[in-house]
C-alpha cells in the first residue's frame, strides 16, 4: 500500500504545484484527452524514438500495476502513439494511465474504457515499429525542462500534469493540506462578503468605474 499516493489522491494538481515551490508542472499543452480524466500514480518513464511506439508496447509489460507511463518522444508530436488496443492492454496490466509529450488517437474509445490519457492532442497518423530503434524504459526523461524519474508521483487532472519528486512527496503533501485548509477558510469568507483585496492585503488601487 502506497500511503503517500493515497494521501495525494484528493489534491488538485494546481494545489500540489503551489505546495512544491512551483516546480514539477509539465508543459501546459499536455492535457486530458477526455473530460474528467484524472491520474494519480507512480511514474514509469519511457523514452520513445520519434514516430515509433514499439517502446510503448514494451513499457506496458515492464510496468507494475498502478504505475503511470510518462513518455518523451524527442519532440515529434505529429503521430498518434497510443490508442484503443494499447489502452486495453494497459488496463489488463493495471496501468493507471498515460502521460505523453506527443499525440494519441482513438479518443472516444479511451473515454469509453475509462483509461486516462494526458497528451499534446489527437493525431490520426500512426507510428512505425522499428525493431532496431533505441529507446529506454525507467531512465529519467526531461519534458519541458522537468526531469521525471521512475517512482516520482504523478497527479494529473483537468488543469494539467504535476510531477512530485519521490523524496519530496511527504513534505509537499503537508504544505498542500495547509494550503487547502487556508483556501477553504477564504472561500467561506468570500461567501460572507469579504473581498480578495482585503483578505490578501492587496493594494486596492483605483477601482472606480467612472469615465474620466
Amino acid at each position, binding site marked *: 500500500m502506497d500511503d503517500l499516493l493515497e494521501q495525494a489522491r484528493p489534491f488538485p494538481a494546481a494545489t500540489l504545484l503551489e505546495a512544491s515551490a512551483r*516546480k514539477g508542472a509539465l508543459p501546459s499543452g499536455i492535457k486530458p484527452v477526455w473530460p474528467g480524466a484524472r491520474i494519480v500514480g507512480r511514474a514509469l518513464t519511457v*523514452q*520513445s*524514438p*520519434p514516430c515509433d511506439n514499439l517502446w510503448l508496447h514494451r513499457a506496458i509489460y515492464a510496468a507494475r500495476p498502478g504505475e503511470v507511463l510518462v513518455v*518523451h*518522444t*524527442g*519532440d515529434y508530436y505529429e503521430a498518434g502513439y497510443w490508442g484503443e488496443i494499447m489502452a486495453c492492454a494497459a488496463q489488463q496490466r493495471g496501468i493507471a494511465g498515460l502521460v505523453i509529450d506527443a499525440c494519441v488517437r482513438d479518443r472516444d474509445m479511451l473515454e469509453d474504457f475509462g483509461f486516462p490519457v494526458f497528451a499534446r492532442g489527437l493525431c490520426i497518423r500512426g507510428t512505425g515499429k522499428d525493431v*532496431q*530503434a*533505441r*529507446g*529506454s524504459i525507467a*531512465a*529519467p*526523461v*526531461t*519534458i*519541458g*525542462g*522537468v*526531469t*521525471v*524519474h521512475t517512482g516520482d508521483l504523478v497527479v494529473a487532472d483537468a488543469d494539467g500534469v504535476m510531477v512530485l*519528486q519521490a*523524496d519530496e512527496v511527504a513534505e509537499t503533501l503537508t504544505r498542500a493540506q495547509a494550503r487547502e485548509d487556508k483556501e477553504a477558510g477564504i472561500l467561506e469568507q468570500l461567501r460572507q462578503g469579504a473581498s480578495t483585496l482585503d483578505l490578501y492585503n492587496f493594494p486596492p488601487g483605483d477601482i472606480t468605474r467612472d469615465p474620466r
Partner: protein
Amino acid sequence: MSALVDRLKALDTCVVSDALDALGLPGVAQGLSRLATDTKIAGHVLTVRLEEAKGRTAERHLCTSAIEAAAAGDVIVVEHHSRTDCAGWGGLLSRAASKKGLAGTIIDGLCRDIDEARAFDYPVYGRGSVPRTARGRIIETEFNTAITVDGITVTPGDLVLADGTGIAFLPADRADEIISRAEQLFAKEAAMMTAIDAGISVGSVMAGNYERMLED
C-alpha cells in the same frame, strides 16, 4: 527551456565549480575543452555509452538514437573512455543535432569533422579531434543510462554547463541548490568587479574575504 536552465546559462562554469566545492560535490570534468563555436551551452543531458567493437556491429549508428530522442535545447553527453584512436562524434551527427536545435555535444574522447561543426555553428566539447572513423573500432552499447565522464557519474536529465573555461555537471536533484549557491557567488564576484572598476586595488578586493568566500 526550463527556468533552471535559464538560470544556469546566466552563470559561468567557474562559479558553478565554486558552488560544487562549497557543497562538497563532484561535477567538474577535467581535460575536456571547447572544440567548436564560442557558444556557452546549458541544458538537460541525454547520455550515450560507446565501447570497443571487438568484432560486434551495431544495429544503429552511434549517437543517432540520442539525437532523435533529444528535445531542442538538450545536450548529448558521450562516454568515450578518453580514447585517442578514433572519433566518437562527427559531421553528419553535428548537422542532424544542429538542425534539431540541440544545445551541443560533450564527448569524453575525440571527435572529427570539427570544421563542419564550426560551419554548422554547432557547439562540440571534448578532448580533441582526430580524423579516424569509429567504423569497426567502436559501437554504441547503451543509450540513456548513467555514464561516466572523467570519473563523474552523469545521469539522463542532469544539467550541464559548458563554456570557454570548462564543463560542470549538476545532478538533477541537487541542481536548484547548486545554482542558488552559484548565484550568490556570482553576485559577490560582480560586486568585486565593480570595486575594481571603481579603482579599489585588486589586492584589497581579493584579500582575505576572497579566500573565505565559499565558506558562508
